[in-house]
């Protein structure tokens, strides 16, 4: 298992089996994850292989919202459950105050059982790290 993937798997308690049939590659400080066939495809040079899983910074690894939406479903640690209104607020780039059992640092924001994206938690403030597209109402 790729060490970056292991790091994410440990922080969020995602079972390693979730990554069993996947391959990860690191390219220009970004970790991509996809099927082995996608990662090995070399007939041409694709613009993108699979999904961006994380961004590598000198002292941290920042998981991506889209990567975690698809692979964070089985997470057991550092997950913060939110209500409908809180989910909308965070998706629209807001922050909220909440005192929950989670380590400071990157967390997964879960709404009705689905990971909606990544947040940054510094007790008691949860700040959205979700990319902003069109507003959610």
């Amino acid at each position: 298992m790729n060490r970056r993937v292991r790091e994410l798997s440990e922080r969020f308690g995602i079972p390693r089996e979730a990554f069993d049939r996947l391959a990860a590659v690191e390219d220009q400080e970004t970790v991509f994850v996809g099927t082995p066939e996608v990662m090995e495809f070399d007939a041409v040079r694709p613009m993108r292989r699979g999904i961006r899983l994380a961004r590598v910074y000198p002292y941290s690894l920042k998981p991506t919202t889209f990567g975690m939406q698809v692979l964070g479903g089985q997470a057991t640690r550092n997950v913060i459950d939110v209500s409908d209104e809180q989910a909308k607020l965070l998706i629209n780039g807001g922050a909220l105050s909440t005192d929950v059992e989670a380590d400071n640092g990157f967390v997964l924001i879960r709404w009705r059982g689905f990971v909606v994206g990544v947040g940054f938690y510094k007790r008691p403030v949860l700040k959205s790290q979700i990319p902003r597209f069109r507003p959610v109402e």
Partner: protein
Amino acid sequence: MQKSELRTRRLDNMTTHSRVFPEAFVERYSRFIPDFDAFLDAMQRPLRRTFRVNTLKATRQQALDLLTDLKPEPLPWYELGFSLNQGEGLGKRIEHFIGLIYVQEAASMAPPLVLQPLPGERVLDIAAAPGSKTTEMSAMMLNTGIIISNDPSPTRVRGLIGNVDRAGCLNVAVCRMDGTSLGRAVAGTCDRVLVDAPCSSEGTIRKSVKALERWSVTAIERFPSIQKRLILAGYHALKPGGLMVYSTCTVAPEENESVVAHLLKRQPEAEVRAAGLPSLIMRPGLREWGRESFPDAVGRCRRILPQDNDTEPFFLALIRRPA
């Protein structure tokens, strides 16, 4: 009703429609579209909002449980497709943002269903943006194997990547290349190929009147040359025994049957198979247009007409490269 009365009524209807549709449009398509008045009526009705449940993110039931307030009605021919009477704001819902659903026109869901990509296969989607069919095939393949999803336009490819991300497709390699060059680069290696060709998009008239304002025979004439190159490129990308779907959302025979006939002329061994989906009404392809007669096999192409299933018009051809 007597024959003469029927004719007068038909002419009256055509006059009414002529106020909406260009005369050349009515003249061209009344020549071969069955139930032509019903066709024109349907083309003037706004499309119902439709969506597909993305099983890479949620089960059908999970998505339906979250959307009960919208009262989705299942499409009769696709268990993951739904229509809404009031679909306003669907794209602003959390369910859409996190990719549990994908807003997609109903007929546009058909080409992947006819192609039937299987888990673990190598699939080429040669003109993929904005990614509706790539993401649909990704779910059909259970996020395994590989879809080489291509679009040459820098702007459109950004939208394609955004949709692949939102839908959670781990089995997609996105390329931005000329389709002909890509077809050559992967020649003989693909189990299935989708050529959802760029077209004059007459089907989108139901989405926007502007499409009708842009309509002209000259606009149609811009597309067949690229369509012919793409269908050949797609065919060359197939493994022996592989399957290809050629599709457009347009009615013009020059962009449909003529393109398939061009493939058959260049690759006479190619087999056109009759495509069908239970409960989706499809009509056979034309056997002639203008001064052009098409081979018998072209009759096995399929036309989806708006009056039959309350969708956009669509054209489909299922083609096999012999083993």
